[in-house]
């Protein structure tokens, strides 16, 4: 796992090695073990290395035997062993045992289609000197990040945005459309980033730069069947899923360093840890987070899983003060506004993992998206069921089954709960039926935008833009699959795998690997009939069924509790005595907001006053505080006071 960066000067000017060194230096947290720069005429590649596979000869950028191909690579090709054998039979001669070299040879063999052979998580760039072509690719699910920018004279790319911002040609300007998307969906639609000049290469895409032309092509897409196999035998499907997950875990244990695992107390990480124990009998080290608030803390289930799985466990406690204190560093790594503080405890967790000497952890990410774990799927099912008989007295009672872990929501009187989840006649035909209550609630946060920002966005509709991007068969998919697509194609790469995944893990040079994100597992799950994923209201039904002998019954049977972290209480004391940290006061002050111009100082002042009163505030206000503060941090650290180093804002 590593950081990559590079330049291709379109006007033919020589790529400056010093600039490349600056661009890779800012990614040093991703790869502290080694670094390298290759510059030849107009092209330059740079690499910061975290050594995991082939510790002795995996130095990058790496070239092929005749020097006609150069690569800088971040990630893992898990099936490199098998690919190497296939390629060797075809006459390819390898100089190292690294997966990096396998990519080079596979590219020499299959060209841009090389990626179809990979089982892995990658972001890489290959300079094809003969064709004068730069080839960039990102893995299917978007596990590893890759950003690029085109200026008048240059094409620039890097693992993180901060690397691109080190290039003097890339301007640092906020993209208001992206901001509007984040303040609706939680994430921005690819290829946008929060910076106008910086684009994300979307998951499952490759990009070429040839003779000054940039072309972006899709190499993979998650496809839900129009007619999933409704008669599939549940026993056979469970067995197949188990086999795939076991093999996905086996491949993800390939490393020349020891591999640890997360153990959150939930089903997914317990399943992964259990499969790991099955694949090998070496002791397994596991890590988790604990909270003060019993509504968020999962220690009881963590301990139970530890006992049953016999792991060596280490937990890190995360207090509200910790989140408030570390939040600016977290935003330095997420490089985007966020509406929840959930990445902050994960930032602490990766530091713990690193302090214990581990570079690789197995995780359970992706399971909720692809195997039907999220409450939003359940919510949509209940709303649709109710809408079929809107006058039913009994059907809306099912709404009480939703979000049992959310105290505030459970305190809602029936009539108001019904109002929040109500289905309007026009909603049933919406491609976003499942997500409407959530997006409408989140969209209201835009009331805090300044008059100028609201005017600039007056005619912009994020949902209309998203609708343009949907796959052509989307409308014919089962509604359950539509909801799954929105989570798997957008929320997963643009928030879960980035702000809660790669970015906070790599902040401390820790690589996450999830067996659920093996594309064979994802493709299999996508074709399963929805009732095997959520049987009536039993989430992840098939996963539970195929792991009954592996995870403790208490973990398997507990109601699903998504991972959450304290929000507004991380920034304001509950006793009404004000902000915990000086930067919070400063960035949310009317003067500062006025100067920055993104948010309305009067509205934010009232919100802050409400937060300071220390009363419990609702989900929407909580998201508003976190969203506004994180946006202000992005402005401060990346636009106004960018220095290429963490902790160097004005406040």
């Amino acid at each position, binding site marked *: 796992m590593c950081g990559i960066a590079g330049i291709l000067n379109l006007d033919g000017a020589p790529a400056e090695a010093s600039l490349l060194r600056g661009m890779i230096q800012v990614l040093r947290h991703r790869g502290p073990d080694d670094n390298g720069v290759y510059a030849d005429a107009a092209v330059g590649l740079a690499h910061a290395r975290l050594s995991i596979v082939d510790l002795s000869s995996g130095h990058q950028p790496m070239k092929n035997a005749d020097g006609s191909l150069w690569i800088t690579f971040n990630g893992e090709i898990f099936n490199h062993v098998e690919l190497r054998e296939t390629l060797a039979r075809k006459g390819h001669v390898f100089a190292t045992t690294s997966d990096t070299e396998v990519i080079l040879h596979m590219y020499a063999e299959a060209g841009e289609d090389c990626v179809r052979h990979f089982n892995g998580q990658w972001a890489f760039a290959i300079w094809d000197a003969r064709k004068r072509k730069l080839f960039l690719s990102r893995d299917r699910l978007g596990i590893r990040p890759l950003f690029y920018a085109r200026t008048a004279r240059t094409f620039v790319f890097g693992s993180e945005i901060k690397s691109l911002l080190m290039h003097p040609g890339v301007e640092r300007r906020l993209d208001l459309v992206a901001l509007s998307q984040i303040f609706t969906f939680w994430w921005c639609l690819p290829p946008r980033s929060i910076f106008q000049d910086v684009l994300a290469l979307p998951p499952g895409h490759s990009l070429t730069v040839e003779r000054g032309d940039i072309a972006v092509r899709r190499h993979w897409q998650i496809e839900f069947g129009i007619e999933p196999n409704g008669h599939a035998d549940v026993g056979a499907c469970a067995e197949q899923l188990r086999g795939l997950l076991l093999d996905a875990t086996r491949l993800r244990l390939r490393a020349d360093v020891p591999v640890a695992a997360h153990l959150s107390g939930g089903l997914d990480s317990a399943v992964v840890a259990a499969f790991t124990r099955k694949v090998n009998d070496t002791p397994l080290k596991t890590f988790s987070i604990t909270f003060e608030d019993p509504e968020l803390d999962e220690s009881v289930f963590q301990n139970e899983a530890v006992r049953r799985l016999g792991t060596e466990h280490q937990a890190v406690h995360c207090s509200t003060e910790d989140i408030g204190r570390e939040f600016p560093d977290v935003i330095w790594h997420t490089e985007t506004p966020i509406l929840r503080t959930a990445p902050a405890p994960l930032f602490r967790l990766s530091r713990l993992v690193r302090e214990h000497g581990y570079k690789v952890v197995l995780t359970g990410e992706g399971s909720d998206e692809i195997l039907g774990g999220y409450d939003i799927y359940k919510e949509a099912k209940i709303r649709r069921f109710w809408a079929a008989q809107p006058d039913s007295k009994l059907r809306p009672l099912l709404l009480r089954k939703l979000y049992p872990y959310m105290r*505030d*929501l459970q*305190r*809602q*009187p029936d*009539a*108001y*709960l019904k*109002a*929040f989840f109500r289905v309007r006649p026009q909603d049933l035909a919406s491609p976003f039926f499942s997500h409407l209550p959530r997006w409408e*609630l989140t969209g*209201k946060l835009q*009331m*805090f935008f300044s008059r100028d920002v609201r005017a600039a966005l007056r005619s912009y509709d994020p949902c209309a833009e998203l609708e343009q991007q949907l796959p052509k068969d989307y409308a014919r998919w089962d509604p359950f699959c539509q909801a799954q697509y929105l989570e798997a194609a957008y929320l997963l790469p643009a928030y879960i795998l980035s702000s809660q995944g790669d970015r906070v893990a790599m902040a401390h040079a820790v690589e996450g690997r999830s067996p659920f994100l093996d594309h064979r597992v994802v493709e299999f799950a996508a074709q399963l009939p929805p009732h095997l994923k959520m049987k009536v209201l039993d989430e992840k039904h098939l996963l539970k069924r195929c792991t009954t002998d592996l995870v403790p019954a208490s973990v398997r049977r507990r109601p699903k509790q998504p991972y959450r972290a304290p929000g507004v209480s991380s920034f304001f004391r509950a006793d009404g005595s004000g902000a915990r940290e000086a930067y919070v006061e400063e960035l949310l002050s009317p003067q500062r907001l006025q100067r920055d111009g993104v948010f*309305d100082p*009067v*509205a*934010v002042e*009232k*919100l802050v006053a*409400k937060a300071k009163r220390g*009363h419990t*505030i*609702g*989900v*929407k206000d909580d998201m508003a505080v976190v969203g506004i503060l994180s946006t202000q941090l992005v402005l401060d650290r990346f636009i106004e006071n960018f220095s290429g180093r963490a902790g160097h804002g004005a406040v």
Partner: protein
Amino acid sequence: MERFEHQLRKFIVENFLFGDETMPFSNEDSLLDRGLIDSTGVLELVAFLQQNFAITIADDEIVPDNLDSILGISDFVGQKLQARA
């Protein structure tokens, strides 16, 4: 009563609209339908009424019939105060 309605309107504008007065609404408008109050908002409203008018609102009284418009709330609170007196 007019003073009460004014006070209530001020609370709604300050607390749910954060001072935004570009969304005019009448005393009869449904707070739910106009999106002026969301799911947790009603609990804040109840806390405000209990605190400011020294009344107690039971769980089964937290229904849109009682609390969904400025006029409705005004009637509801009026009855409560009368019953107490």
